[in-house]
């Protein structure tokens, strides 16, 4: 247990805590910007922290026939999302456990969380939970392949599925601009919107039964369980932001040995990227309208097609 190792552990721990601490803020920023765009004052930026804190201290109300699965799911969801988020390089690459899961595994981890949540949605046996789960799984069954194809395209460019290696390869600029990268980015954005239940796929603010997906699943949740789920949602959004940052604008990350200044630079740039994205998202959301449930296939199908095209291009020629 020498010093270097402790330092490594610290770096890894820093990343875990960083994403956890940052997640509600990201959510707050997007809400604030959105409110502003809608000519509202909007809640304060740190409102999510307060919400989660409040929920954590409320008693949890459970349906009579809620099973153990219903109570475990929030923590499982939170854990999977958190671990996944912590495995995405944020401010530095080659962290201690970066090798323990590659991009495919991260996507699969999110799928695990979704699996659990969809089951929980069906546990108490209401119609809403069923609607939410079934729609969630339908969206996932379309979004996950698209996401995996995005993974393929970037992995084929980088010749690896390890995020750290990818980032380092992209950083040193040898890759350059590529058609396939553009397509992959396009597809990735669509998938991210769908996975995070944002407009136009879903509206995180609504509780209108017919349109909601994610909110319908968690309709029965309350108290600390709801807090866990909210936190997980925020973490997921953060995860996708940092994933986008890591894959497409990896610049500024600490690549070499992690001394103070490189880490600081990494942190600064990371925060900057995340905030920019948190501003861009509501702008996009306010400029489009929510779409009907059975329009999703077209929406995600386009993402799927774009990613597939990217992969095809890469299979056909390595230089596109």
């Amino acid at each position, binding site marked *: 247990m020498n010093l270097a190792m402790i330092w490594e552990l610290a770096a890894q721990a820093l990343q875990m805590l960083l994403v956890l601490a940052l997640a509600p803020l990201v959510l707050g920023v997007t809400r604030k910007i959105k409110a502003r765009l809608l000519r509202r004052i909007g809640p304060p930026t740190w409102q999510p922290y307060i919400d989660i804190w409040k929920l954590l201290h409320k008693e949890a109300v459970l349906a009579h026939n809620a099973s153990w699965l219903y109570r475990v799911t929030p923590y499982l969801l939170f854990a999977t999302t958190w671990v996944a988020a912590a495995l995405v390089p944020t401010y530095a690459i080659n962290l201690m456990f970066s090798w323990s899961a590659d991009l495919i595994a991260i996507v699969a981890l999110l799928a695990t969380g979704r699996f659990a949540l969809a089951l929980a949605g069906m546990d108490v046996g209401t119609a809403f939970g069923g609607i939410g789960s079934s729609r969630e799984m339908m969206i996932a069954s379309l979004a996950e*392949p698209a996401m995996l194809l995005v993974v393929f395209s970037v992995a084929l460019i980088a010749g690896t599925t390890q995020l750290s290696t990818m980032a380092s390869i992209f950083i040193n600029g040898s890759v350059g601009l590529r058609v396939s990268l553009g397509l992959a980015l396009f597809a990735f954005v669509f998938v991210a919107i769908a996975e995070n239940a944002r407009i136009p796929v879903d509206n995180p603010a609504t509780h209108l039964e017919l349109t909601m997906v994610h909110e319908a699943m968690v309709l029965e949740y309350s108290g600390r369980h709801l807090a866990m789920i909210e936190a997980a949602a925020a973490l997921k959004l953060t995860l996708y932001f940092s994933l986008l940052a890591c894959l497409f604008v990896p610049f500024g990350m600490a690549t070499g040995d992690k001394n103070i200044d490189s880490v600081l630079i990494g942190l600064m740039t990371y925060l900057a990227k995340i905030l920019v994205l948190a501003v861009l998202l509501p702008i996009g959301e306010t400029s489009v309208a929510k779409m009907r449930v059975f329009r999703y296939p077209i929406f995600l199908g386009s993402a799927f097609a774009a990613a597939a095209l990217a992969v095809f291009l890469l*299979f056909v020629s390595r230089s596109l």
Partner: protein
Amino acid sequence: MPAFVGLWCVAALLGIAAAGVILGRWSWSWAPIYFASLVVSLAGLAAAFWHLWAGLPPETLSLPVGLPGVGSKFRLDALAAFFLLVANLGGAMASLYALGYGRHETSQLRVLPFYPAYLAGMNLVVLSDDAVSFLIAWEFMSLSSWALVVSNHRAPENIRAGYVYLLMASIGTLTLVLAFGVLAGVTGDYSFAAMRAQHPDAVAAGLVFLLVLAGAGSKAGLVPLHIWLPLAHPAAPSHVSALMSGVMTKIAIYGFIRIVFDLLGGPAWWWSLIVLGIGGATAVLGVLYALMQQDLKRLLAYSTVENIGIVFIGLGLGLAFRASNMAVPAALAITAALLHVFNHMLFKSLLFFGAGAVVTATGERNMENLGGLIHRLPRTAVAFLIGCAAVSALPPLNGFVSEWLTFQAILIGPELPQWGLRFIIPAVGAMLALSAALAAACFVKAYGIAFLGRPRSPAAEAARETDVFSLAAMFILAALCFAAGILPGAAIDFIAPVVQGLAGARLPVQIGQAWTSIVPIASSRSSYNGLVILSFLLASGVITALVVHRFATRATRRSDIWDCGYPDATPAAQYSGSSFAMPIRRVFGTTMFHVRETIDMPRPGETRAGHFHVKVTDPAWRWFYGPAARAVLRASAALNWLQFLTIRRYLTLVFATLVLLLMVVAAWR
């Protein structure tokens, strides 16, 4: 020596079958029979395990029976040992399960003699080393399982299932006979050794490949030869269903690997094109079929079709890489395929056991009448949930590992020279991703409808937890699912000799890797560590929970569900299986499955109930088998008048033929 152990196991199982004939009339007979099968299967398991573990050389044995001049030869090499291990592990678990489950069988005489015979047949297929013994064992397997499928002979659908099954099985066998005919040549030396020695020319080899793909594929359940599978597997008693889905399809895959990879010599690249295409189609279609089902066991059977597709994707990649002499990628692909074979045996057996427990507890296979079983069958529910997560390829369980390895193999695809493969491999990758996602949806449906929610029928209301033997079998399998998920490196190293034999190379040794993570090619390329993931999940989850409970509140209140102001809605108001599958059916199914939804809504004022019917038809039936069956019947009807002619007309037939032959003679030069 293990080869002889294997043969003795076969002999012992046949003996047990004979005992089953004698004992079957007594009600207690299931216990000794299944116990004996369990013991023998464990012995076979030990033999196979030892052979692989000690890395013994192939050993052969020939008995002076079977085809005159050829005799019957038996051989145990690494490949055979691996599949022997799969078969006997599945057999042992099924026997253990049946120690409890077998009690519920109404007519033991229809099951007990055939169950050990079925196990014996599967063992013998793997051991046999000449065409005739292989086919005899192969068909013996089919026959005994047919007897088990029709064991509940009063249900007409079982009889139909048995018929379709036996017909497809014998068609498959005949195609294999043709394949062996080419391999043996005109001289007709039907021993595998001779076939291995002589390499047929390109055309003959391609022909053999196609025939074997059809023959073994029909038994494995490749689309469009899968139709018998979802009929037959659910019809059998559940421990037999588990064997059919978990083991027999693997035996079929063994046949494919044995002939195509071992006997046939170097493959041509277009073979992999076909295998990949069919494998991908099978994976996607299989899981889509599964999503449409309301019958729990049929859903599981269709999911078997999907997983067979995944295995064949791996094998196709292996063929592609071998054709281009890329040994290490081939090793990766084949490792993925074999691991998935093993994993699927684990979780599919587990799931069928769970389904069997549900059926015995409720007497219902239709999910629409289940629900809330997580409260009535708590232990079964845990095991079944693990199975569902594993089959949905979720980390940190074992299903994910093999699919992850397959993805890794796909990502090496661009290095292949052939354009055709470069186009199809990404498509197959997309199909694989799609099937994985759909599988998750499918098993959310299966578990959510059957185990969660509120009971939809009195039977489900009154369900009781199953017996200890069944639970033991299920939990052993669940534990193995976890083990194979978090320590895949050991498994990869364990099957390395098999892969070495098939691909000519092996993956780097995994045991040495840091933190027991698996590194297929190079650590810079890709790596995965189930153990660390699991520990991270456990740590973060548990810590969070503790923190929340300690520093926030742990207060909990039970209350009614939010009912929109309409209190005590009936359980029927829950989401049903078909409504759960509806969005996906809309997206994928409407054209492909010829889905017909008929809604019968009473007009305002009418008091009768409204009805909603969904009819999903398997396109294979619609486009392929239905027409074929109709054609045969039409032909027989068209020929039938020949039974009703007058004697004079028959004489005219004879006369005409005679004159025709005379003309032939007159014209003969």
